[in-house]
């Protein structure tokens, strides 16, 4: 048992209950369906921008890329333009590969002592694979939800839905017949990848040791989002038309307070929505800001060219130095005796 994940799990469950009970028992649809979503979006946008600005306010005094390959050197030595970029174009490629494909994580190895005294390093791609699946499935789920925000639903969102639903899961045999036509693979992948990341945190000794509540909390929250979404779609069969009407009301700044509509979506819908709101509110104040931070990381977004192009430090200030004159004054006689040239005989 670990207080960090127990605490996070309890908080996430409590958040769900708060929304569920708040809507089902206390009739607080206006709070969970209107006030909190608007507040969440505002806090997210404001918080995100202010965090980025606060990073950007700190200057980059030195050009300190982490070089990952042969640098540009003599004309006949082949440089590695991606891992040791010497131009802005190369930096863009390095950053794109980092952001879109998690290139540094792809390098990951695992070190083990084998045969008692040999350190061996093997490739360890699971973290890379599941991180990539996690982020991309989340992206697809997010984009898919534009069906609820836009009317008419754009063709690209429909296409995405078609592709996402292309892989159908059907178990058919004599005893059981379960068919889920139109099953979205992204939701399942998101839940599975988040589960992998969670189990890794809980059971890999080193990762468990470094994990904080603030590492478990967003994972549970995102799993909660995925789980409530899947429940609504495949099991509760939530009234999508009503849900969309509510969401469109928010998007068009004409919130709907029609009791018939709010009744026909379940408390789970409000739990789902509340989870998303909590995620948005939590985002700018947490490690989730790595989304923005990666763009500003000075070891990745700068070229390895400081001997070629001057980098200016805006706060460079004069320092106390020991000048040659002071040096010669102290050692002049010894220098002359040793036959070393001096400025003043």
């Amino acid at each position, binding site marked *: 048992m670990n207080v960090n994940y127990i605490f996070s799990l309890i908080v996430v469950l409590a958040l769900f209950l708060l929304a569920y009970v708040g809507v089902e028992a206390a009739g607080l649809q206006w709070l969970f369906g209107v006030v909190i979503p608007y507040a969440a979006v505002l806090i997210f946008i404001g918080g995100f921008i202010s965090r980025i600005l606060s990073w950007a306010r700190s200057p980059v005094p030195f050009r300190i890329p982490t070089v990952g390959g042969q640098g540009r050197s003599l*004309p006949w030595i082949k440089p590695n333009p991606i891992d040791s970029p010497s131009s802005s174009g190369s930096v863009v490629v390095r950053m794109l590969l980092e952001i879109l494909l998690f290139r540094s994580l792809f390098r990951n190895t695992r070190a083990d*002592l084998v045969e008692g005294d040999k350190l061996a*390093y093997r490739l360890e791609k699971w973290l890379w694979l599941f991180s990539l699946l996690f982020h991309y499935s989340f992206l697809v789920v997010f984009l898919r939800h534009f069906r609820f925000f836009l009317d008419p639903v754009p063709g690209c969102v429909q296409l995405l839905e078609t592709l996402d639903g292309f892989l159908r899961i059907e178990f058919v045999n004599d005893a059981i017949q379960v068919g889920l036509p139109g099953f979205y693979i992204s939701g399942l992948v998101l839940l599975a990848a988040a589960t992998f990341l969670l189990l890794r945190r809980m059971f890999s000794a*080193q990762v468990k040791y*470094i994990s904080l509540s603030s590492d478990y909390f967003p994972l549970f929250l995102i799993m909660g989002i995925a789980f409530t979404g899947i429940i609504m779609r495949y099991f509760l069969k939530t009234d999508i038309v009503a849900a969309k009407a509510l969401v469109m009301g928010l998007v068009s700044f004409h919130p709907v307070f029609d009791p018939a509509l709010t009744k026909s979506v379940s408390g789970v819908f409000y739990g789902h929505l509340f989870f998303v709101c909590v995620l948005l509110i939590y985002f700018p104040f947490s490690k989730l800001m790595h989304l923005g931070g990666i763009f500003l*990381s000075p070891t990745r977004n700068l070229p390895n060219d*400081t*001997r070629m192009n001057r980098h200016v430090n805006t706060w460079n200030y004069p320092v106390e130095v020991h000048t040659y004159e002071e040096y010669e004054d102290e050692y002049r006689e010894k220098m002359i005796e040793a036959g070393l*040239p001096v400025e003043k005989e």
Partner: protein
Amino acid sequence: MSDELITADEMLTQIDHKPPGKGWMDTPVNIRKGMYCYASNPKSVEYLGLPNARPWNPMEDDWKLPDNWQEIVHNAFKDRLERFRSFKVFMDICVRCGACADKCHFFLGTGDPKNMPVLRAELLRSVYRNDFTKLGKIMGKLNGARPLTIDVLKEWWYYLYQCTECRRCSLFCPYGIDTAEITIMGREIMNLLGLNIDWIATPIANCYRTGNHLGIQPHAFKDMIDFFVEDIEEVTGLALEPSFNQKDADILFITPSGDVFADPGTYSCMGYLMLFHYLKEKYGLKVTWSTYASEGGNFGFFTSHEMMKRLNSKMYAEARRLGVKWILGGECGHMWRVIHQYMDTMNGPADFLEEPVNPITGTKFENACNTKMVHISEFTADLIKHGKLDLDPSRNDHLSVTFHDSCNPSRGMGMLDEPRYVIQNVCKNFHDMPANTIREQTFCCGSGSGLNAGENMEQRMAGGLPRANAVKHVHEKYGVNMLSCVCAVDRAALPALMEYFVPEVEVCGVTELVANALILPGEKERETDLRMEPLPGREEES
């Protein structure tokens, strides 16, 4: 080496990479003998004008800090968050994915979980969250925040001097979080309380005054070079005349003073002298050494950005005074990170120098056109490529060589193929170590960033374990008996590491190998290498 040091086998069997059950915040720091360097000598601290010079001992409870030390740390932390985007971003965006955990040589060698780069950074982040973030203030320990207490400060000191700023973790981090940046800031802040180690503070004081870390005064510096001249005469029969502080020279040469002082760096130093003699005799190139700027290394870098700038200023100042065309730099690790990534920004622009061109080959060193300082391996590779050196690689036939990429030339500048090209042209037997331990993935010698003292031998051996393990592999597989490198700290640190783990392997600089093979005009038939060891097969012939 200390008598109390455990054996290599004991060290290997003791390592357990599984962290304990108890959380790291609840595990107080245990400062252990052999794992830390002695506190700075107050005289050195005072000479440099750094704060809180006083004798103190890390093993004693009272570290004799200023009364308002917490306020000093808080303000210094804030100031650095505002001045360094790296520091601010790296405090905020770590997701604790753990990819860095087993990339650190100190973690691999000690199994101490606080040597996982992520935790080393969390030592500072925990205080950052408490002092500077809303969530940290509200949630406290649950969100990984804790106030700065004296025990936390001691933990900082202990573990920030168990990081060699090698940046291997930064290569694997999906956001490029660089523990070296965090260690640099942490050490900088601790210096404001007078918490430095003597292996750093005293060399800096020496360097500031005499021009080099070892405190060699100008006449003694010349004397030491003259000893090498005598040794070279014994090997080659030629009397060299190196030049010092010479105003009409073409090039100013600066290398770490460690190579002037201790084996096996001395052989590389002899190598430089022989190479410059060759170039003078053959092509009329005038290279001069400086006694004022007689240090390439910069332990100021391990103290603060300001101290780094104060020491580094001598390079350009001396080049300007002597009126040379450009500067050539010897083999050194962190010296080259400072030159490549910091020098021009701190002390430039070097508009009084020319864009470096090799007058012998006509090659323009375009990659150095702004900073105007060229690495000896770049320079030598260019000479060899154009066939400008007469070489007899068979004089290195008794060696089977591998190459240790030093952290800074690899991850700080991307100099990977130049030294390999040079080595492979001056000796026939070359074998690289396994891919995960070289080039950009290279492992630190375990003694970088000012940690190559004598009292912390266990720490150094543990930190060097992954490197030694890879050397052992090529020693057993290919019979490698020489570990070459382009770093003076390596040359000081690796011999002890080899003696501990792979005693059959010796350590050398790349220029030593070059000089062994280099045929000087008018030299006698060589019977020994630069180490005065007989060249196999040559004795009988003569």
